[in-house]
């Protein structure tokens, strides 16, 4: 397919910083620098190469010429989406999102199913005073493994007397992944629907549970008046101010995995670590690739809905192997995508993967 360029591609100096840092380049046939180069001339690019990108953002964060290589890839994907030149699984995910506002096409009425498991009373946002919206991601909403995250956060907030509300079945996919798959029109629709919900209920701040939602709400929604943050930020504030008291120890060797959308792309590295460090007995270890150099789990950018052509050693496996060598017992994450991808690999090695809220609930006073 031939593509036209819409970003700053002509200023690329072909330095290779993007490729060198890309978690897919070198492991799969994707070479992001080459894609940018070809895009400059409108030269042929193999369609399949574009779908390895996990939208981790490393290339864009580091590019010395601000070319935004990942955006070049998303633009090229949109050409494919427009012409229908995409795999059926991606096609399906897009259709599902159009119809049911989630990529799996699960019933919208079941969006807040997790709330029943929480054991605490959860209000609709309209019934709250402070208009603090707890926004779950499609993964939290529909994957039973991830239900525990909104459940835990709701419990922690309720016990601490922090008011919040949810949108229930009105909640809709944030579109972060959709935009990265290249379906810009659908992203716009989702964005509009979400914004009109926020406006209708006079939402003042949004507590996001997924770094992916946080990222798009912060950077791609244009909501200057709304405070958008990640739950690890709130949890750390609660611990620091003594609203949440840790009463038990957690005697395990733990490594924290920085999610790309929280760390690299949004600079939140410390809060999750502060939380873990405040737990007695917990030994916090670091992966060799951590913080800015964290190794992408490969869950983003549409990769959740798409099986790539080439078989290769998955990053999650590399990650788990390092954890094993370090003697880590628990890998801690703060993103539902990372939870899913890492857990799949960790089970074999007998390492547990936990969301940070799961640990916190265990050690509560």
């Amino acid at each position, binding site marked *: 397919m031939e593509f036209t360029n819409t970003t700053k591609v002509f200023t690329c100096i072909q330095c*290779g*910083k993007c490729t060198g840092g890309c978690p897919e380049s*070198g492991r799969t046939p994707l070479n992001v620098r080459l894609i940018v180069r070809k895009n400059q001339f409108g030269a042929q690019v193999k369609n399949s190469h574009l779908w390895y990108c996990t939208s981790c953002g*490393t290339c864009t964060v*580091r590019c010395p010429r601000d070319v935004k290589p990942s955006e070049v890839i998303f633009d090229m994907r949109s050409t494919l989406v427009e012409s229908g030149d995409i795999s059926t699984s991606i096609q399906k995910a897009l259709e599902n999102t159009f119809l049911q506002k989630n990529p799996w096409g699960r019933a919208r009425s079941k969006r807040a199913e997790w709330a029943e498991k929480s054991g605490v009373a959860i209000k609709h946002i309209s019934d709250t005073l402070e208009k603090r919206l707890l926004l779950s991601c499609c993964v939290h909403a529909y994957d039973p493994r991830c239900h525990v995250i909104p459940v835990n956060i709701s419990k922690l907030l309720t016990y601490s007397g922090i008011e919040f509300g949810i949108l229930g079945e009105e909640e809709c996919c944030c579109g972060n992944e959709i935009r990265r798959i290249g379906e810009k029109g659908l992203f716009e629709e989702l964005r509009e629907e979400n914004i009109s919900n926020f406006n209708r209920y006079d939402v003042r701040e949004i507590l996001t549970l997924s770094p992916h939602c946080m990222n798009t709400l912060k950077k791609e929604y244009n909501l200057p008046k709304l405070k958008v943050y990640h739950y690890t930020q709130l949890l750390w504030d609660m611990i620091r101010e003594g609203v949440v008291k840790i009463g038990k120890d957690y005697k395990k060797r733990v490594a924290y995995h920085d999610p790309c959308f929280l760390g690299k792309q949004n600079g939140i590295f410390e809060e999750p670590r502060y939380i873990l460090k405040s737990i007695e007995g917990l030994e916090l270890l670091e992966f*060799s690739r951590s913080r800015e150099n964290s190794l992408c789990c490969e869950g983003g950018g549409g990769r959740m809905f798409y099986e790539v052509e080439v078989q290769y050693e998955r990053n999650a496996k590399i990650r788990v192997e390092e954890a094993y060598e370090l003697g880590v017992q628990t890998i801690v994450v703060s993103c539902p995508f990372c939870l899913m991808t890492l857990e799949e690999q960790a089970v074999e090695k007998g390492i547990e993967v936990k969301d940070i809220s799961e640990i916190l609930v265990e050690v509560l006073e």
Partner: protein
Amino acid sequence: MKTGIFICHCGHNIKHTVDVKELSEYFKEIPNVYVATDYAFVCSEPGQEIIKESIEKFELDRVIIASCTPSLHGELFKDLLKKSGLNPFLLRRVSIREHCSWTGDDLKKNTEKAKKLILAGLFSVVHNLPFEEKVVEVDKSALVIGGGISGLSAACFLSKMGIRVYLIEKEKELGGHVKRLNNVWPYEKTGKEIVESLVSELVKADNVQIYTGARLELLEGYFGNYNVKITADGEREMNFKVGGVIVATGFEPFDPYLKPELGYGRDRRIVTTLEIEEKLNEVVLPEKPRVAILHCVGSRDETLGKSYCSRICCINALKVARMIKEGYENAYIECFYMDVRAHPKGGEEFYEETQVKGVFFTRGNVAEVVPLSRCVLIRGEDTLLGEVFEKEFDLVVLSIGMSSQSENKRLSQLLKVSLDKDGFFMEAHIKLRPFDTAVKGIFIAGCCSGPKDVEESINHGKASALKLFGMLNKGYAYVEPFVADVTEKRCSGCRMCESVCVANAIKYDARKRVVKVEEAQCMGCGLCNATCPSSAVTLLGYSDMILMDEISGLLARL
């Protein structure tokens, strides 16, 4: 009145977005305009010749030059008028570059705006009067700020030429960064040697005062007569007078913590070129060390807001490679670069020799550095092969670039000299006046205006010193006659002007109950003019009439 209008293209700068031909055609038709013409570079020799010839031919008595901002080439055009036998104050400059062509690229709108700006000049130039310039005596002394190689070179030169020099250095010792270098390319000398020869000269000279641990607190006045206040050694306060100033505050090495993916500070095996230079003998390496040298760290990088090339770090990387190779014959050294910019004389040859000596070069901007227990792993792409690599090293050297001196911000306010987007001092004109600032009598030397190597810094320092010397040596200078003037009849003696005057130039005459302006002291700031409730103060050259006529020009219907 016979007016001539000269419109500059500024090469592409103005012509690109303003229809200069239309302008000259338009103004030709206006009565009293005897000549209206446009030219590629009005400031060039042929451009000046055109103006001179027109003045003589048409016996012009008012001249309008529509070009760059008046703060540029001010002296040049004034001299031109003088040479053409016309009083220099009969010139009016109109900025159609900064105020017009650079503000947008709509040709039609810009051309209209340019017309109005020139009309404003044309309407008000009638009020320009043939003032006489004031002559003031110049103090044959200079303040040099910064005792690095460029400041030292400037100070030595001035001292030799008989100018009294006050050199202030914020650190305890003179020498700047050069003093920290173990091996200065291409001199094959230690920085200490280079610095010390200059310092000893200065110490011996009887017309040089050196202050270390010093800080400039205040600079007031104008070329020839600056009052300076400094503190030295922490507290000692000192006041003196100088004729001119040379700023030589140098640079700051790039802070590698700002590139976290390169792992600096997380492991002892990741160091900067400056650290290696200072303490290569302290670094413990295996017998056959594997060393990676990363170019462009902190330069050519928009993520840091530093898009410039630091110009010394390629040569520096080569130099460090050679230093290591000398200490460890069997070392495996690989440089990772985007481009090898070995531009100084002999640089390319040095590059080739380095390759011959067995240093490897790989084209690729390293993406990440991961310290492991057995090695330091670097990941990047060999962009010529199109292959991603992960390689193991025992030492990773970051070839850091230059950042602007953080003190520059404060100094720029004290000296009223602008900084560029990267925080370096701005030249009056990058090509035509690279040593001058926009402020008369204040010059720049060395890396304070951007990255340079030692040789360039020395030359820059000497050149600035030479220019300042030329001005000081005359012994006198012209000062603009644009001072405040009080119409006694109107003055009610309220003394409000006195309270705002920054130069202490307003004196109250208790007997007459009016104020008077002390011409020699007045800086022409106009505060009194704006403050006076009785409109008794006029700022010569900027009268209300001039401003009103300018406004009429701006509002004129075309």
